[in-house]
Protein backbone atom coordinates (compact mmCIF):
# COMPACT_ATOMS: atom_id res chain seq x y z
CA UNK A 1 0.00 0.00 0.00
CA UNK A 2 2.82 2.40 0.95
CA UNK A 3 4.81 1.43 -2.15
CA UNK A 4 1.70 1.92 -4.26
CA UNK A 5 1.23 5.44 -2.87
CA UNK A 6 4.89 6.28 -3.44
CA UNK A 7 4.72 5.14 -7.08
CA UNK A 8 1.44 6.97 -7.59
CA UNK A 9 2.91 10.20 -6.19
CA UNK A 10 6.12 9.82 -8.19
CA UNK A 11 4.40 9.32 -11.54
CA UNK A 12 1.84 11.99 -10.70
CA UNK A 13 4.63 14.50 -10.13
CA UNK A 14 6.34 13.26 -13.31
CA UNK A 15 3.11 13.85 -15.25
CA UNK A 16 2.87 17.41 -13.89
CA UNK A 17 6.55 18.11 -14.60
CA UNK A 18 6.31 16.94 -18.22
CA UNK A 19 3.13 19.00 -18.60
CA UNK A 20 5.11 22.05 -17.44
CA UNK A 21 7.88 21.19 -19.92
CA UNK A 22 5.30 21.32 -22.74
CA UNK A 23 5.06 25.10 -22.24
CA UNK A 24 8.65 25.77 -21.20
CA UNK A 25 10.11 24.66 -24.53
CA UNK A 26 9.80 26.40 -27.90
CA UNK A 27 10.60 23.29 -29.94
CA UNK A 28 7.44 21.75 -31.38
CA UNK A 29 8.77 18.19 -31.29
CA UNK A 30 9.98 18.57 -27.68
CA UNK A 31 6.64 20.00 -26.72
CA UNK A 32 4.69 17.14 -28.33
CA UNK A 33 6.92 14.45 -26.86
CA UNK A 34 6.81 16.07 -23.40
CA UNK A 35 3.03 15.82 -23.63
CA UNK A 36 3.46 12.18 -24.63
CA UNK A 37 5.58 11.44 -21.57
CA UNK A 38 3.12 13.32 -19.36
CA UNK A 39 0.32 11.08 -20.68
CA UNK A 40 2.49 7.97 -20.39
CA UNK A 41 3.15 8.90 -16.74
CA UNK A 42 -0.63 9.00 -16.23
CA UNK A 43 -0.78 5.54 -17.82
CA UNK A 44 1.83 4.37 -15.32
CA UNK A 45 -0.35 5.85 -12.55
CA UNK A 46 -3.17 3.61 -13.78
CA UNK A 47 -0.77 0.67 -13.52
CA UNK A 48 0.17 1.72 -9.97
CA UNK A 49 -3.56 1.75 -9.16
CA UNK A 50 -3.81 -1.86 -10.45
CA UNK A 51 -5.99 -0.99 -13.44
CA UNK A 52 -3.80 -2.87 -15.87
CA UNK A 53 -5.88 -2.67 -19.05
CA UNK A 54 -6.46 1.08 -18.81
CA UNK A 55 -2.78 1.71 -18.08
CA UNK A 56 -1.46 -0.33 -20.98
CA UNK A 57 -4.09 1.16 -23.31
CA UNK A 58 -3.20 4.71 -22.28
CA UNK A 59 0.53 4.08 -22.75
CA UNK A 60 -0.10 2.53 -26.17
CA UNK A 61 -2.56 5.06 -27.60
CA UNK A 62 -0.67 8.16 -26.52
CA UNK A 63 2.57 7.17 -28.29
CA UNK A 64 0.88 7.18 -31.68
CA UNK A 65 -1.40 10.14 -31.05
CA UNK A 66 1.26 12.49 -29.73
CA UNK A 67 3.76 11.55 -32.44
CA UNK A 68 1.18 12.33 -35.13
CA UNK A 69 0.44 15.60 -33.34
CA UNK A 70 4.18 16.37 -33.50
CA UNK A 71 4.18 16.10 -37.29
CA UNK A 72 1.23 18.49 -37.58
CA UNK A 73 2.86 20.96 -35.19
CA UNK A 74 6.07 20.84 -37.24
CA UNK A 75 4.10 21.33 -40.46
CA UNK A 76 1.99 24.26 -39.31
CA UNK A 77 4.48 26.24 -37.20
CA UNK A 78 6.83 28.65 -38.93
CA UNK A 79 9.57 27.98 -36.39
CA UNK A 80 9.24 24.28 -35.46
CA UNK A 81 12.70 24.05 -33.93
CA UNK A 82 12.05 27.04 -31.67
CA UNK A 83 15.38 28.64 -32.58
CA UNK A 84 14.14 32.17 -33.33
CA UNK A 85 12.76 32.97 -29.90
CA UNK A 86 9.13 32.82 -30.96
CA UNK A 87 6.64 33.28 -28.10
CA UNK A 88 3.93 30.64 -28.20
CA UNK A 89 1.93 31.90 -25.23
CA UNK A 90 -1.00 34.30 -25.47
CA UNK A 91 -3.90 35.59 -23.35
CA UNK A 92 -1.70 35.22 -20.28
CA UNK A 93 -4.02 36.76 -17.67
CA UNK A 94 -7.00 34.65 -18.67
CA UNK A 95 -4.79 31.56 -18.76
CA UNK A 96 -3.37 32.22 -15.29
CA UNK A 97 -6.84 32.81 -13.86
CA UNK A 98 -8.21 29.64 -15.50
CA UNK A 99 -5.20 27.64 -14.28
CA UNK A 100 -5.49 28.83 -10.68
CA UNK A 101 -9.25 28.26 -10.65
CA UNK A 102 -8.91 24.77 -12.19
CA UNK A 103 -6.22 23.75 -9.68
CA UNK A 104 -8.33 25.06 -6.78
CA UNK A 105 -11.37 23.10 -7.92
CA UNK A 106 -9.33 19.91 -8.44
CA UNK A 107 -7.53 20.13 -5.09
CA UNK A 108 -10.77 21.11 -3.31
CA UNK A 109 -12.62 18.16 -4.82
CA UNK A 110 -9.82 15.77 -3.86
CA UNK A 111 -9.69 16.98 -0.25
CA UNK A 112 -13.31 17.81 0.56
CA UNK A 113 -15.27 14.98 -1.05
CA UNK A 114 -15.91 11.92 1.11
CA UNK A 115 -14.58 9.15 -1.09
CA UNK A 116 -15.80 6.32 1.16
CA UNK A 117 -13.93 3.06 1.71
CA UNK A 118 -11.39 1.90 -0.89
CA UNK A 119 -13.00 -0.55 -3.32
CA UNK A 120 -11.52 -4.00 -3.81
CA UNK A 121 -9.55 -4.63 -7.00
CA UNK A 122 -10.65 -7.49 -9.27
CA UNK A 123 -7.96 -9.65 -10.92
CA UNK A 124 -6.47 -8.10 -14.11
CA UNK A 125 -8.07 -10.85 -16.21
CA UNK A 126 -11.47 -10.14 -14.70
CA UNK A 127 -10.99 -6.42 -15.42
CA UNK A 128 -10.43 -7.14 -19.13
CA UNK A 129 -13.53 -9.36 -19.16
CA UNK A 130 -15.70 -6.82 -17.32
CA UNK A 131 -14.54 -4.01 -19.59
CA UNK A 132 -15.43 -6.07 -22.65
CA UNK A 133 -18.92 -6.81 -21.29
CA UNK A 134 -19.38 -3.11 -20.46
CA UNK A 135 -18.36 -2.03 -23.98
CA UNK A 136 -20.63 -4.59 -25.62
CA UNK A 137 -23.65 -4.00 -23.41
CA UNK A 138 -24.41 -0.76 -21.59
CA UNK A 139 -21.87 1.56 -23.23
CA UNK A 140 -22.14 0.13 -26.72
CA UNK A 141 -24.28 2.95 -28.10
CA UNK A 142 -21.93 5.63 -26.76
CA UNK A 143 -18.81 3.98 -28.17
CA UNK A 144 -20.35 3.16 -31.52
CA UNK A 145 -21.67 6.71 -31.87
CA UNK A 146 -18.27 8.15 -30.99
CA UNK A 147 -16.53 5.76 -33.38
CA UNK A 148 -18.83 6.53 -36.32
CA UNK A 149 -18.56 10.28 -35.63
CA UNK A 150 -14.76 10.15 -35.68
CA UNK A 151 -14.80 8.02 -38.83
CA UNK A 152 -17.14 10.49 -40.54
CA UNK A 153 -14.88 13.36 -39.55
CA UNK A 154 -11.85 11.51 -40.92
CA UNK A 155 -13.53 10.78 -44.26
CA UNK A 156 -14.78 14.37 -44.49
CA UNK A 157 -11.39 15.96 -43.75
CA UNK A 158 -9.70 13.66 -46.25
CA UNK A 159 -12.30 14.57 -48.87
CA UNK A 160 -11.72 18.28 -48.21
CA UNK A 161 -7.93 17.90 -48.28
CA UNK A 162 -7.85 16.16 -51.66
CA UNK A 163 -9.07 19.26 -53.46
CA UNK A 164 -10.82 19.63 -56.79
CA UNK A 165 -9.49 17.88 -59.85
CA UNK A 166 -9.79 18.73 -63.51
CA UNK A 167 -8.42 21.38 -65.87
CA UNK A 168 -9.04 24.37 -63.56
CA UNK A 169 -8.95 22.71 -60.16
CA UNK A 170 -5.90 21.75 -58.15
CA UNK A 171 -2.75 23.71 -57.46
CA UNK A 172 -0.41 21.89 -59.83
CA UNK A 173 -2.23 22.50 -63.09
Amino acid at each position, binding site marked *: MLLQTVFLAFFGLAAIWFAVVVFRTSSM*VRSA*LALLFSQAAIGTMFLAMQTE*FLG*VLQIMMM*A*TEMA*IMAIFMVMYMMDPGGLSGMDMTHQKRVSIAAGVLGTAVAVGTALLVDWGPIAGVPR*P*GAQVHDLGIELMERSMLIFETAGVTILTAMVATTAIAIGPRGPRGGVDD
Partner: protein
Amino acid sequence: MSALLAIVALLAGAYFVAVLEGWASTGRFRPAGPVLAGLSLLGRESVVPRRPDRIFFEVAPPLLLASAVLAAAVLPLAPGLIVADLATGALFVNAALAYVMVALLMAGWGPDGAYAMVGGFRFLGQLVAYSMLIVMPVTAVAMRAESLTTTEVVASQAPLPNALYQPVGFAVFLVAAMAVCFLPPFDLPTAPGELAGGVMAEYTGWRLAMMRLARAVLVVTLASSIAVFYLGGWLGPLLPPWAWTAAKTLAVAAAMLFVGRYVPRVREADLLAWCWKIGIPLALFNIFFVGVLLLVV
Protein backbone atom coordinates in the same frame (compact mmCIF):
# COMPACT_ATOMS: atom_id res chain seq x y z
CA MET B 1 15.62 -15.97 -12.60
CA SER B 2 13.37 -16.04 -15.65
CA ALA B 3 14.28 -12.38 -16.28
CA LEU B 4 17.96 -13.33 -16.42
CA LEU B 5 17.26 -16.29 -18.69
CA ALA B 6 15.13 -14.10 -20.94
CA ILE B 7 17.91 -11.53 -21.27
CA VAL B 8 20.45 -14.26 -22.12
CA ALA B 9 18.00 -15.67 -24.67
CA LEU B 10 17.44 -12.22 -26.19
CA LEU B 11 21.18 -11.58 -26.46
CA ALA B 12 21.75 -15.00 -28.05
CA GLY B 13 18.89 -14.31 -30.44
CA ALA B 14 20.29 -10.88 -31.30
CA TYR B 15 23.67 -12.49 -32.04
CA PHE B 16 22.11 -15.04 -34.39
CA VAL B 17 20.05 -12.31 -36.07
CA ALA B 18 23.16 -10.21 -36.60
CA VAL B 19 24.99 -13.18 -38.16
CA LEU B 20 21.97 -13.95 -40.35
CA GLU B 21 21.60 -10.33 -41.38
CA GLY B 22 25.24 -10.18 -42.43
CA TRP B 23 24.79 -13.44 -44.33
CA ALA B 24 21.63 -12.23 -46.03
CA SER B 25 23.02 -8.85 -47.03
CA THR B 26 26.60 -9.75 -48.02
CA GLY B 27 26.27 -13.43 -48.91
CA ARG B 28 29.13 -14.36 -46.58
CA PHE B 29 28.65 -16.42 -43.40
CA ARG B 30 30.82 -14.87 -40.67
CA PRO B 31 30.02 -16.20 -37.16
CA ALA B 32 32.48 -13.78 -35.51
CA GLY B 33 31.21 -10.80 -37.51
CA PRO B 34 28.82 -9.24 -34.95
CA VAL B 35 31.34 -9.51 -32.11
CA LEU B 36 34.13 -7.93 -34.17
CA ALA B 37 31.83 -5.20 -35.48
CA GLY B 38 30.59 -4.48 -31.94
CA LEU B 39 34.12 -4.30 -30.52
CA SER B 40 35.26 -2.02 -33.32
CA LEU B 41 32.28 0.31 -32.76
CA LEU B 42 32.94 0.40 -29.01
CA GLY B 43 36.58 1.29 -29.68
CA ARG B 44 35.70 4.29 -31.82
CA GLU B 45 34.84 7.83 -30.81
CA SER B 46 31.11 8.54 -30.51
CA VAL B 47 30.76 11.93 -32.19
CA VAL B 48 27.95 14.30 -31.17
CA PRO B 49 26.82 16.39 -34.14
CA ARG B 50 26.74 20.18 -34.08
CA ARG B 51 23.70 21.79 -32.37
CA PRO B 52 21.81 18.58 -31.56
CA ASP B 53 18.63 18.28 -29.56
CA ARG B 54 20.77 16.62 -26.94
CA ILE B 55 18.01 14.96 -24.90
CA PHE B 56 16.45 13.26 -27.92
CA PHE B 57 19.86 12.34 -29.34
CA GLU B 58 20.89 10.57 -26.13
CA VAL B 59 17.52 9.03 -25.23
CA ALA B 60 16.69 7.49 -28.63
CA PRO B 61 19.07 4.45 -28.61
CA PRO B 62 18.20 3.30 -25.05
CA LEU B 63 14.48 3.90 -25.69
CA LEU B 64 14.61 1.74 -28.83
CA LEU B 65 16.34 -1.01 -26.85
CA ALA B 66 13.94 -0.67 -23.92
CA SER B 67 10.82 -0.91 -26.08
CA ALA B 68 12.10 -4.08 -27.78
CA VAL B 69 13.08 -5.66 -24.45
CA LEU B 70 9.77 -4.71 -22.77
CA ALA B 71 7.77 -6.24 -25.62
CA ALA B 72 9.82 -9.43 -25.27
CA ALA B 73 9.11 -9.54 -21.51
CA VAL B 74 5.52 -10.71 -22.02
CA LEU B 75 6.35 -13.39 -24.61
CA PRO B 76 6.78 -16.88 -23.11
CA LEU B 77 9.84 -19.03 -23.88
CA ALA B 78 8.41 -22.15 -22.25
CA PRO B 79 5.63 -22.94 -19.72
CA GLY B 80 6.51 -20.91 -16.64
CA LEU B 81 9.47 -19.25 -18.36
CA ILE B 82 8.12 -15.75 -18.91
CA VAL B 83 9.21 -12.48 -17.29
CA ALA B 84 5.73 -10.99 -16.82
CA ASP B 85 2.62 -13.04 -17.57
CA LEU B 86 0.30 -10.05 -17.84
CA ALA B 87 -3.46 -10.38 -18.27
CA THR B 88 -3.08 -7.83 -21.08
CA GLY B 89 0.01 -9.44 -22.66
CA ALA B 90 -1.04 -9.20 -26.31
CA LEU B 91 -1.99 -5.55 -25.83
CA PHE B 92 1.23 -4.82 -23.95
CA VAL B 93 3.29 -6.02 -26.95
CA ASN B 94 1.59 -3.34 -29.06
CA ALA B 95 2.08 -0.71 -26.36
CA ALA B 96 5.81 -1.41 -26.11
CA LEU B 97 6.25 -1.53 -29.89
CA ALA B 98 4.58 1.89 -30.27
CA TYR B 99 7.67 3.37 -28.60
CA VAL B 100 9.88 2.05 -31.40
CA MET B 101 8.39 4.83 -33.49
CA VAL B 102 8.89 7.38 -30.70
CA ALA B 103 12.56 6.35 -30.44
CA LEU B 104 13.10 6.64 -34.19
CA LEU B 105 11.31 10.00 -34.29
CA MET B 106 13.70 11.20 -31.55
CA ALA B 107 16.70 9.74 -33.39
CA GLY B 108 15.53 11.55 -36.51
CA TRP B 109 14.93 14.95 -34.92
CA GLY B 110 17.77 14.88 -32.38
CA PRO B 111 20.98 15.07 -34.42
CA ASP B 112 19.95 18.14 -36.50
CA GLY B 113 20.72 16.35 -39.77
CA ALA B 114 18.65 16.31 -42.96
CA TYR B 115 18.96 12.58 -43.71
CA ALA B 116 18.16 11.64 -40.12
CA MET B 117 15.08 13.86 -40.03
CA VAL B 118 13.72 12.53 -43.31
CA GLY B 119 14.24 9.01 -41.95
CA GLY B 120 12.51 9.76 -38.66
CA PHE B 121 9.43 11.28 -40.23
CA ARG B 122 9.34 8.50 -42.82
CA PHE B 123 9.03 5.99 -40.02
CA LEU B 124 6.13 7.94 -38.58
CA GLY B 125 4.37 7.52 -41.93
CA GLN B 126 5.36 3.87 -41.89
CA LEU B 127 3.68 3.50 -38.48
CA VAL B 128 0.45 4.92 -39.88
CA ALA B 129 0.69 2.16 -42.50
CA TYR B 130 1.55 -0.83 -40.33
CA SER B 131 0.05 -0.18 -36.89
CA MET B 132 -3.50 -1.29 -37.78
CA LEU B 133 -2.04 -4.43 -39.37
CA ILE B 134 -0.37 -5.30 -36.06
CA VAL B 135 -3.40 -4.66 -33.86
CA MET B 136 -6.15 -6.20 -35.99
CA PRO B 137 -4.57 -9.66 -36.55
CA VAL B 138 -3.71 -9.79 -32.81
CA THR B 139 -7.41 -9.13 -32.12
CA ALA B 140 -8.31 -12.26 -34.07
CA VAL B 141 -5.63 -14.23 -32.20
CA ALA B 142 -7.06 -13.06 -28.87
CA MET B 143 -10.56 -13.97 -30.08
CA ARG B 144 -9.54 -17.59 -30.54
CA ALA B 145 -7.70 -17.74 -27.20
CA GLU B 146 -10.52 -15.82 -25.46
CA SER B 147 -7.73 -14.07 -23.58
CA LEU B 148 -5.03 -11.45 -24.04
CA THR B 149 -2.59 -13.52 -21.96
CA THR B 150 0.22 -14.74 -24.20
CA THR B 151 0.53 -18.11 -22.45
CA GLU B 152 -3.16 -18.79 -23.10
CA VAL B 153 -2.70 -17.74 -26.72
CA VAL B 154 -0.06 -20.48 -27.03
CA ALA B 155 -2.25 -23.01 -25.20
CA SER B 156 -5.17 -22.24 -27.54
CA GLN B 157 -3.09 -23.43 -30.49
CA ALA B 158 -2.68 -27.00 -29.26
CA PRO B 159 -5.15 -28.44 -31.84
CA LEU B 160 -3.96 -26.30 -34.75
CA PRO B 161 -1.46 -23.41 -34.94
CA ASN B 162 -2.91 -20.04 -35.84
CA ALA B 163 -0.79 -19.90 -39.01
CA LEU B 164 -3.09 -22.61 -40.40
CA TYR B 165 -6.25 -21.60 -38.51
CA GLN B 166 -6.12 -17.97 -39.70
CA PRO B 167 -3.61 -17.85 -42.58
CA VAL B 168 -4.75 -14.41 -43.76
CA GLY B 169 -4.02 -12.86 -40.36
CA PHE B 170 -0.66 -14.63 -40.28
CA ALA B 171 0.36 -13.21 -43.66
CA VAL B 172 -0.77 -9.69 -42.74
CA PHE B 173 0.98 -9.79 -39.35
CA LEU B 174 4.20 -11.11 -40.90
CA VAL B 175 4.39 -8.20 -43.34
CA ALA B 176 3.52 -5.69 -40.60
CA ALA B 177 6.14 -7.20 -38.27
CA MET B 178 8.80 -6.68 -40.94
CA ALA B 179 7.67 -3.07 -41.22
CA VAL B 180 7.93 -2.58 -37.43
CA CYS B 181 11.57 -3.65 -37.33
CA PHE B 182 12.27 -1.71 -40.55
CA LEU B 183 13.76 -4.68 -42.34
CA PRO B 184 14.17 -4.56 -46.12
CA PRO B 185 11.99 -4.02 -48.15
CA PHE B 186 10.52 -1.71 -45.48
CA ASP B 187 13.83 -0.14 -44.39
CA LEU B 188 12.56 3.36 -45.21
CA PRO B 189 13.92 5.11 -42.07
CA THR B 190 17.47 3.86 -42.60
CA ALA B 191 17.42 3.29 -46.39
CA PRO B 192 21.11 2.58 -47.06
CA GLY B 193 22.12 3.90 -50.47
CA GLU B 194 19.39 6.53 -50.48
CA LEU B 195 19.38 8.20 -47.04
CA ALA B 196 22.93 7.09 -46.12
CA GLY B 197 21.66 5.40 -42.96
CA GLY B 198 18.80 7.82 -42.21
CA VAL B 199 18.02 7.76 -38.48
CA MET B 200 21.32 5.98 -37.83
CA ALA B 201 23.37 8.28 -40.08
CA GLU B 202 24.55 10.65 -37.34
CA TYR B 203 25.23 7.99 -34.72
CA THR B 204 28.76 6.70 -34.23
CA GLY B 205 30.74 4.62 -31.73
CA TRP B 206 28.95 3.12 -28.74
CA ARG B 207 25.69 4.91 -29.53
CA LEU B 208 25.59 3.27 -32.97
CA ALA B 209 26.46 -0.07 -31.35
CA MET B 210 23.46 0.35 -29.05
CA MET B 211 21.18 1.27 -31.97
CA ARG B 212 22.28 -1.81 -33.91
CA LEU B 213 21.87 -4.06 -30.85
CA ALA B 214 18.39 -2.60 -30.30
CA ARG B 215 17.46 -3.28 -33.92
CA ALA B 216 18.66 -6.89 -33.66
CA VAL B 217 16.73 -7.38 -30.39
CA LEU B 218 13.68 -5.86 -32.09
CA VAL B 219 13.89 -8.44 -34.89
CA VAL B 220 14.12 -11.22 -32.27
CA THR B 221 11.12 -9.79 -30.40
CA LEU B 222 8.96 -9.60 -33.52
CA ALA B 223 10.03 -13.09 -34.66
CA SER B 224 9.24 -14.38 -31.17
CA SER B 225 5.83 -12.71 -31.21
CA ILE B 226 5.05 -14.41 -34.53
CA ALA B 227 6.15 -17.74 -33.02
CA VAL B 228 3.91 -17.15 -29.99
CA PHE B 229 0.87 -15.74 -31.79
CA TYR B 230 0.85 -17.90 -34.93
CA LEU B 231 3.21 -20.89 -34.73
CA GLY B 232 2.19 -22.38 -31.40
CA GLY B 233 5.10 -21.05 -29.31
CA TRP B 234 6.64 -23.82 -27.24
CA LEU B 235 4.24 -26.54 -28.49
CA GLY B 236 5.83 -29.38 -30.46
CA PRO B 237 6.83 -33.03 -30.19
CA LEU B 238 10.10 -34.58 -28.92
CA LEU B 239 12.22 -31.47 -28.26
CA PRO B 240 11.96 -29.53 -24.95
CA PRO B 241 9.60 -26.51 -25.04
CA TRP B 242 12.31 -23.82 -25.00
CA ALA B 243 14.01 -25.47 -27.98
CA TRP B 244 10.78 -25.26 -29.99
CA THR B 245 10.38 -21.57 -29.16
CA ALA B 246 14.00 -20.89 -30.10
CA ALA B 247 13.79 -22.88 -33.34
CA LYS B 248 10.55 -21.22 -34.43
CA THR B 249 11.80 -17.73 -33.53
CA LEU B 250 15.06 -18.18 -35.42
CA ALA B 251 13.30 -19.69 -38.43
CA VAL B 252 10.91 -16.72 -38.62
CA ALA B 253 13.81 -14.26 -38.20
CA ALA B 254 15.77 -15.99 -40.95
CA ALA B 255 12.74 -15.92 -43.27
CA MET B 256 12.17 -12.20 -42.56
CA LEU B 257 15.84 -11.38 -43.23
CA PHE B 258 16.23 -13.41 -46.41
CA VAL B 259 13.01 -12.18 -48.03
CA GLY B 260 14.41 -8.66 -47.99
CA ARG B 261 17.33 -9.66 -50.15
CA TYR B 262 15.11 -10.41 -53.11
CA VAL B 263 12.53 -7.62 -52.88
CA PRO B 264 13.16 -3.98 -53.87
CA ARG B 265 12.50 -1.28 -51.26
CA VAL B 266 8.89 -0.07 -51.37
CA ARG B 267 8.03 3.60 -51.71
CA GLU B 268 6.43 5.32 -48.72
CA ALA B 269 3.28 6.23 -50.69
CA ASP B 270 2.95 2.70 -52.05
CA LEU B 271 3.39 1.20 -48.58
CA LEU B 272 0.62 3.42 -47.18
CA ALA B 273 -1.69 2.74 -50.12
CA TRP B 274 -1.20 -1.03 -50.01
CA CYS B 275 -1.51 -1.27 -46.23
CA TRP B 276 -4.75 0.74 -46.14
CA LYS B 277 -6.38 -0.46 -49.36
CA ILE B 278 -5.36 -4.13 -49.24
CA GLY B 279 -4.05 -4.86 -45.73
CA ILE B 280 -6.89 -3.45 -43.62
CA PRO B 281 -9.69 -5.13 -45.66
CA LEU B 282 -7.76 -8.40 -45.38
CA ALA B 283 -7.36 -7.94 -41.61
CA LEU B 284 -11.08 -7.16 -41.26
CA PHE B 285 -11.94 -10.23 -43.32
CA ASN B 286 -9.66 -12.25 -41.02
CA ILE B 287 -11.52 -11.06 -37.91
CA PHE B 288 -14.85 -11.94 -39.58
CA PHE B 289 -13.52 -15.33 -40.73
CA VAL B 290 -12.21 -16.25 -37.25
CA GLY B 291 -15.48 -15.08 -35.71
CA VAL B 292 -17.45 -17.36 -38.04
CA LEU B 293 -15.11 -20.27 -37.31
CA LEU B 294 -15.45 -19.74 -33.54
CA LEU B 295 -19.23 -19.33 -33.51
CA VAL B 296 -20.31 -21.75 -36.21
CA VAL B 297 -17.73 -24.54 -36.55
